[in-house]
């Protein structure tokens, strides 16, 4: 199968924190300037390695949130309860700190504008991060591929990238459909339940028009969405998934 194969050895690089953006009370974007970064494709991820003074190391993988942009790498990280690495990244890291990054990794769960559409993106919580890289890429290259994003969040306050998604809807014609599974604002007219087959039947492109589908989120959501889309007649081979559990794992 043809892929965006990684050529040669991936080296650990030192990324310097150049910007910190609080997205929600528990989610922070960290932008690194990473000299030597070989570039990436929307949907790829990066390994992060932290080293304590006594030499102890911890590694995790995080999706890249920004579109290809020279040597800048943006990670949007949700703080997990008891998260050894996510806690450090979201609470301790400051402008000017440097940590080790290695990537880009993964050539399957990726979308480039030339792959066309229409594109269906479905995410739960911080699963929106690699899909955001695809949306930002679409805008950056001036693509007019039709895109729908179905995003499941617990509450209005916990929608990651909420303002930017509103702007993408207003200015770039990207259709964003929210479902709020926990609490909803008083006047909420949108979906207020977990993503299910009925919702997908309403939101997904008709089967005969459908293009690539990317689903990212917790295992339960990804399983439910992939199974429901398949049962609605969508070609399983077009449905690409990425799941993360409470350990913050990746592909």
């Amino acid at each position: 199968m043809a892929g965006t194969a990684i050529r040669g050895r991936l080296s650990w690089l030192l990324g310097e924190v150049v910007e910190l953006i609080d997205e929600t009370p528990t989610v922070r974007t960290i932008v690194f300037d990473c000299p030597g970064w070989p570039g990436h494709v929307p949907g790829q991820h990066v390994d992060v390695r932290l080293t304590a003074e006594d030499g102890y190391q911890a590694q995790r993988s995080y999706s890249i949130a920004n579109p290809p942009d020279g040597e800048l790498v943006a990670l949007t990280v949700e703080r997990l309860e008891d998260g050894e690495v996510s806690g450090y990244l979201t609470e301790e890291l400051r402008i000017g700190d440097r940590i080790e990054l290695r990537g880009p990794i993964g050539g399957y769960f990726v979308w480039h504008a030339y792959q066309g559409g229409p594109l269906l993106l479905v995410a739960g919580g911080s699963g929106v991060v690699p899909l955001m890289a695809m949306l930002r890429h679409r805008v950056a290259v001036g693509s007019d591929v039709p895109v729908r994003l179905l995003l499941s969040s617990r509450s209005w306050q916990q929608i990651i990238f909420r303002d930017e998604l509103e702007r993408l809807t207003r200015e770039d014609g990207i259709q964003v459909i929210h479902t709020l599974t926990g609490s909803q604002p008083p006047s909420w007219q949108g979906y207020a339940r977990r993503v299910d087959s009925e919702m997908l039947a309403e939101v997904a492109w008709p089967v005969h028009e459908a293009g690539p589908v990317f689903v990212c989120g917790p295992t339960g959501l990804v399983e439910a969405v992939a199974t429901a889309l398949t049962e609605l007649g969508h070609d399983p081979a077009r449905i690409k998934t990425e799941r993360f559990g409470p350990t913050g794992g990746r592909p």
Partner: protein
Amino acid sequence: MDRISRGFRGRPRVDAPTGRVPPGQYATGDFPVLSAGPTPRVETADWRLSITGEIDQPLSWTWEQFRALDDEQVAVDIHCVTKWSKLDTTWVGVSLDTLLAGVETAAEFLLVHSYGGYTTNLPLADVIDGKAWVVHTYDGEPLDPEHGGPARLLVPHLYFWKSAKWVTGIELRNDEEPGFWEGYGYHIYGDPWREQRYAGD
């Protein structure tokens, strides 16, 4: 000193016995699910396992025939390239030694095929002499579809992407054809103790 992450201490390191968690890994109690697409739903009535390729007489088993083979109990540590390791996992399944008994082949490699189209490559030497199984039971229960049921490969000494879920075919080959993740830049062999995560590691 460049590599020190200012202010990083890590959590107290008492959770894993020494010598059982490979470099760059951490022990978890969860069993995360990781796969590239929808979970194939395979009824055991339709299930087949075959051995093809460099073999005079290809072999094939129905579910009933496969389940009639000698089972082995396996207790092993598993290591996923996404950094988690899970210690003391217990499985029941059929050794590749049993499936390959009596097979004469000049092949040196396998390309393992799964329902749903997934593939992974392995040297033949890495699946014989008690190193690999096709398992149908995890932790005393039939293997969930999400974790590769009805049956998956188990090759615990390599990163877990080599332990193909939903296995249906074992192709014996003279050459090493990269499988799915191997074709996307993951390591061709994948030894966790040498931290062979990506091509060139």
